[in-house]
């Protein structure tokens, strides 16, 4: 072996020695903890941030101006549907007999259903761009329509009116009609319809709020529904807080999701009124859509949230659930509820916070 070859070999050895001796085991780039995974939809959900929505005013997660009296809002692929009443210019004084958290609808114009497109730049919506898509025309609607639920697959818009559930279908030019009463149980005071396809059958399931809680009705065609049963959504015993027992479930919103392993479930979100006056959004899941397993933890607590409407999308390869609900932010003025968005998994960000400039 020539001297040059030997030197080359020794250089290789010395280089390896240098690699070993210097700079080893000192901190460089490193990965953070593994990201949380949440495919079951139980949450926890976080309120959308200001940088994601463009709205700085409370309540946390607000996605739209709230000068109107907003009831329920549902995000769909074709925009946000919501029910609202516009404040009257010569509104009467608030009825003092009403509870503090109840809207005095005599101070507003008739409730209608509106639609507004999502903004391009963030998760917010422009109230001024909202257009009415449905108003009460039928006697059984008793002058007001509310609680919209648009089923993208069928193009049908379900809604609550006069204690019944109605439905209109999208026609030419996007207009909805005719008004059909699809479920009426006069003594039940039906509200908040939410329609999903039956996970084990061919028909559809309709979840509604009744005076007794949350119930389910079934239909083969999505037009004629028959009442099936009241749902049992009790908390597991070990999760019951004796200081804040659950008094009422209301405002259901549902979706059908397929997990990464291919298992299909119905996920039901609803508002829970507790004995201490607080409200949370609860969650339950079912494989057949009829018998539900209740999550022991709330999806989120928020500011007295109601009427959750879930929206499932794939964002950067991750299944993300957004829940649109209404939350209270004041009780002294006309409008005291605003539409908010909550997001799960927690680490999914639709916009990043800008770093503060260095001093």
């Amino acid at each position, binding site marked *: 072996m020539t001297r040059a070859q*030997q030197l080359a070999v020794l250089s290789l050895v010395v280089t390896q020695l240098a690699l070993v*001796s*210097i*700079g*080893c*085991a*000192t*901190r460089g780039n490193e990965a953070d*903890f593994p990201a949380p995974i949440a495919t079951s939809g139980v949450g*926890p959900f976080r309120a959308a941030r200001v940088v994601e929505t463009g709205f700085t005013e409370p309540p946390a997660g607000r996605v739209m101006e709230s000068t109107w009296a907003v009831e329920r809002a549902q995000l769909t692929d074709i925009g946000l549907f919501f029910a609202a009443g516009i404040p009257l210019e010569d509104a009467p004084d608030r009825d003092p007999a009403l509870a503090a958290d109840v809207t005095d609808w005599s101070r507003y114009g008739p409730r209608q259903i509106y639609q507004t497109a999502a903004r391009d730049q963030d998760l917010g919506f422009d109230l001024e761009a909202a257009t009415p898509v449905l108003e009460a025309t039928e006697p059984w609607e008793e002058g007001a329509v509310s609680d919209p639920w648009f089923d993208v697959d069928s193009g049908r818009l379900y809604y609550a009116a006069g204690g019944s559930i109605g439905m209109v279908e999208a026609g030419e030019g996007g207009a909805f009609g005719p008004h059909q009463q699809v479920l009426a149980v006069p003594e039940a005071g039906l509200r908040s319809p939410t329609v999903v396809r039956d996970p084990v059958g061919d028909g559809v399931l309709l979840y509604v709020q009744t005076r007794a809680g949350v119930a389910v009705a079934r239909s083969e065609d999505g037009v004629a529904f028959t009442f099936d049963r009241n749902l049992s959504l009790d908390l597991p015993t070990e*999760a019951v807080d004796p200081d804040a027992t659950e008094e009422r479930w209301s405002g259901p919103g549902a979706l059908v999701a397929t997990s990464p392993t291919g298992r299909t479930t119905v996920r039901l979100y609803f508002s829970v009124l507790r004995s201490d006056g607080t409200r*949370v959004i609860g969650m339950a899941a079912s494989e057949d859509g009829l018998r539900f397993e209740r999550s*022991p*933890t*709330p999806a*989120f*607590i928020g500011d007295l949230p109601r009427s959750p409407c879930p929206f499932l999308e794939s964002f950067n390869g991750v299944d993300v659930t957004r829940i649109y609900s209404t939350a209270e932010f004041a009780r002294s003025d006309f409008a005291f509820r605003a539409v908010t968005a909550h997001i799960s998994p927690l680490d999914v960000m639709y916009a990043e916070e800008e770093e503060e400039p260095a001093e």
Partner: protein
Amino acid sequence: MTSRTSLSALLFVSLALLAELAAPVRVHASPPDVLGYGARSSALGLTGVSWANDYEATFANPAGLATQRRTGVSIGMQAGALQLTLDDQAFPIDPTSGQVIGFHLPLPFGGPLKDVLVLGTGFYTPSNTVLRNDIIFTEIPQFAVLARAQSVALHLGLGINLDKVVPGLRVGVGFSVLANTAGRLDVELDEGSRFVSLTETQLLAGFNPIIGVQYDRDTSVGKFTFGLVWRDEVRSDVGLNIQVEGLPIPLPIITINAVAQYDPHAFVFEAGWSPTPNFMVALQLGYERWSRWPGVVGKSSEFSNLPPDPEFRDTITPRLGLEYRTSARRTKLALRLGYSYEMTPAPPARIADLRDSEGAPLVIRGVQQTRAVRYLDSDRHVFTGGGGVEFVFDNANFGLDLFIQLHRIAERTHDVPAEGGTENMVHSGYILAGGWAATVEW
């Protein structure tokens, strides 16, 4: 070497290894720079910069490795008991013990590299601990220098014999490897008032260079050896961030910062003289830059106050070692004595100025805020002794070295009384230490 004696040597090493593993789990050891590194150096007044040539050289002076022509493995143990008094009361402090495994290995290159490169490693580990640190509030009396972190010490060295270039000249380079600790603790309460925590701890290596040179000169009055070594500052930093979220009480981000282990920059010069092959005297002078010590503890959040400056000063330490060697047939014997004067870097315990988060004096409503600093330390007189026996065979040597040390910790009167006391604190004490090392060379 007969197979009988070979087996005896192997048996001894095996038993020594067994003793290593069976060491009691009772913990606590002093760092090697208090008791020394290796049984020979510890017996010779903590000298070695001019003469150490086995694993001890990886700490003392890696240039010394270059004189080795044999491969060797060493195993040893050391232990020490501290008897300290503060205001005539016994001050409890844990005894120490630790083990060393070391080796030296001449690299058998040929040609121009023949007998040039020698590798060495020394691995000291306190019994059952890797890094022990007690960082306590400054007003609590503490022996901040003696009770420094008990820490693993890993030394790697390469000796380079330059005898072919300059007769008698050797250089060495090495690293002292110590761990820094970093970590985080994120605590959160979820919606169900359930506690969720993420904890992470990381050990990061710190590589601190040691560079040394040795030079031999034979004269008519004997052989002189000079050694000079520079050791970089060695510190083990602790950094732990604690973030608590979801509690009804907002807490700041808590930063647990501390210097758990600290050895200052050191320049050490040593001269050795062997008038005859049977006798050696080594005289050492070491400079240690203690003034750079930042204190053991940092601030606890971004805007929290800093504890008082420890105000340590640089030290100069003289050390002396005497060794007498004799041999009879295949047995070599050595007797060793030594003395070291370990000057304290610490000022007396005192009332000191508190500092704000930027390090400036903390003044509130025109009044400088103060805090007692009760770091206890004083000059140490270290008397050492020991011996060694080595059995020489045809192709292997087997050696056993022992040492014993007595440290006299000078009495010191401080400038501040103990908490609730009226008389200024007075401390003094002793350390009694001993150990052994067994070596097989072939």
